[in-house]
């Protein structure tokens, strides 16, 4: 029983990380149908910038704030200089652009930061919480709570504010949204900014557990994306559910089956979901226009 509980806690820890990353994909996809492969780099920037500002002597809370702002700036720049000019391009082109952006940001991080790995202090100390023979770190709970907060905030934003409605409108039909006076370019830019902020916050919360380096972005993006697909891309709650489920799959397969192919789990999940139910667990089905 203690074993099962430990696997469960591990799944929760890793799943919360994936959930936060997956949430970042959701907003941009909702507003513009773009799968932003650079989402992982937003997470990396949040963590690495905080670490380096901290090393330079800036007090951590301030460093964190600056890191989030800096990442938002990068997100806006990405939208303004890479996505906006390519408006109307095919899905493949947009994916390639974001992949190019991710490679660019990774290369820049190597030069600006360094090639070693770094950590951040845990918010509530490193003493694990012991329950039923298993142990979970307080920071894992912080990440979970963070993900929950983001979901709630996103829901409030989309459902309760005019701006949020504008995002939905833009996603539903861009032309119609413009016809009713919505500045769709700005809306998409806003979605990039918010996604970047979510990514940066994810980086901050996750780095104490998972450590960070200039290239954490790639694998995180792939797994976060798998989680988003599993839960249903386009649904914030789905992103969290997908993330937690993916984390559980990984933890339980590592624990009960074999740890050798643990990494393969995420990709097998992607394939299984895509073959069986492309819209994911909580996603809305897509209407295919002829």
């Amino acid at each position: 029983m203690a074993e099962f509980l430990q696997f469960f806690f591990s799944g929760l820890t890793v799943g919360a990380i994936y959930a936060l990353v997956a949430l970042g994909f959701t907003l941009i996809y909702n507003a513009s149908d773009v799968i932003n492969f650079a989402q992982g780099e937003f997470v990396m920037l949040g963590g690495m910038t905080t670490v380096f500002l901290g090393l330079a002597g800036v007090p951590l809370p301030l460093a964190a704030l600056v890191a989030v702002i800096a990442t938002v700036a990068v997100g806006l720049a990405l939208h303004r200089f890479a996505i906006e000019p390519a408006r109307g391009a095919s899905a493949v082109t947009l994916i390639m652009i974001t992949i190019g952006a991710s490679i660019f940001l990774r290369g820049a991080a190597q030069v600006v930061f360094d090639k070693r790995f770094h950590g951040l202090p845990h918010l509530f100390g490193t003493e694990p919480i012991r329950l039923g023979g298993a142990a979970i770190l307080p920071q894992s709970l912080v990440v979970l709570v963070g993900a929950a907060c983001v979901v709630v905030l996103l829901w409030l934003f989309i459902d309760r504010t005019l701006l949020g409605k504008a995002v939905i409108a833009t996603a539903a039909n861009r032309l119609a949204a413009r016809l009713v006076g919505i500045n769709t370019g700005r809306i998409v830019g806003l979605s990039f900014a918010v996604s970047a902020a979510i990514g940066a916050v994810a980086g901050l919360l996750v780095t104490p557990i998972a450590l960070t380096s200039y290239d954490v972005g790639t694998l995180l993006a792939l797994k976060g994306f798998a989680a988003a697909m599993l839960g249903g891309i386009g649904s914030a709650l789905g992103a969290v559910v997908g993330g937690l489920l993916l984390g559980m799959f990984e933890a339980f397969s590592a624990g009960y089956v074999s740890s050798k192919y643990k990494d393969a789990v995420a990709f097998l999940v992607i394939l299984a979901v895509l073959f069986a139910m492309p819209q994911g667990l909580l996603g809305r089905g897509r209407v295919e226009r002829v």
Partner: protein
Amino acid sequence: MATLKSAVAMGAAAVAALIVGGSPAAAQIKIGAVLSVTGPASFLGDPEKKTLEIYVEDINAKGGVNGQKLQLVVYDDGGDANNARTFATRLVDQDKIAAMVGGTTTGSTLAMIPVFEEAQIPFISLAGAIQIIEPVRKWVFKTPHTDKMACEKIFADLKRRNLTTIAMISGTEAFSKSMRDQCAAVAPKMGITIAHEESYGPRDSDMTPQLTNIKGKAGVQAVVNPGFGQGPAIVTRNYRQIGITLPLYQSHGVASKQFIELAGPAAEGVRLPAAGLLVADKLADNDPQKSVVVNYSRTYQQKTGQAVSTFGGHAYDGLMILVQAMQRAKSADKAKVRDEIEKTKGYVGTGGIVNMSPTDHMGLDLSAFRMLEIKNGDWTLVP
């Protein structure tokens, strides 16, 4: 008068230029280096590049080798073996190097070996696996300890503590996998039983499932973690998190101050084999390695602002062994230099004392490794 003086000065300068330009002593000795400065092995390649650059500059400032300056040609293979081979071909055919110090990873080294063997150029590799020098190839040498030696050192220490049944948890990337294979091969010969094995990906953030399985396995007396990079730090933290109290051994790839910082209090009591470089300040004053490692640590720290790295140390040794061989051969002729490298005896480096021979192209023995234990957040030597 002024014109005559300046004419004489110009004439003298021209003659001097002719002499300097015409004499062969002005030609530079080209040393090639294909390193993984970016990509998954950049943690190893970056300090290697920095070290080579610092010391080539240093050697040139002191007059060069045999009166000639060294020219370092560095290419970044990005951790990809195909690129490494292309750059190796470039070094041989275009840059026409005299010798090569490089090959950060075993994969890139193995891909490049045929190029240098065919071109008959001495190649000192900076990678760890034993296949690089076993079987011995005429033109290939290496400076890092083999992972086999790391296993032997760990197992010897285990035996001294009367621990014979272990579990292993290893990373899946090249460095860790290679060491894991060697440990599995060496264990029966040293009377160690590996009761259980687990693995983790190099970017994983939580290893508690694997460690839980190890904790639950009866009869395990100690745990060995062949790994490098951030994985071992997380493994160590998880280890204490779920309350395993058995002795934990890390690999030589982990040997850096950063590991202690990131693993935190969980690192207390962890042992690992490492070169004297890491405990430079703690070595006894009469230790033959002391002055070399202290100097290298200080210089590296000063010039880069980063803590010293074992991998940078291997690059230092590679360069010095090459340079000393050139000095003994009194030329940069490839065959003569190769012979002199093979005759390296008593070279005191960051990795240990090197004694090469026609059958041993690495030259380190088990005494090159010290067994370290982490106490109170710092390295201490296990007697």
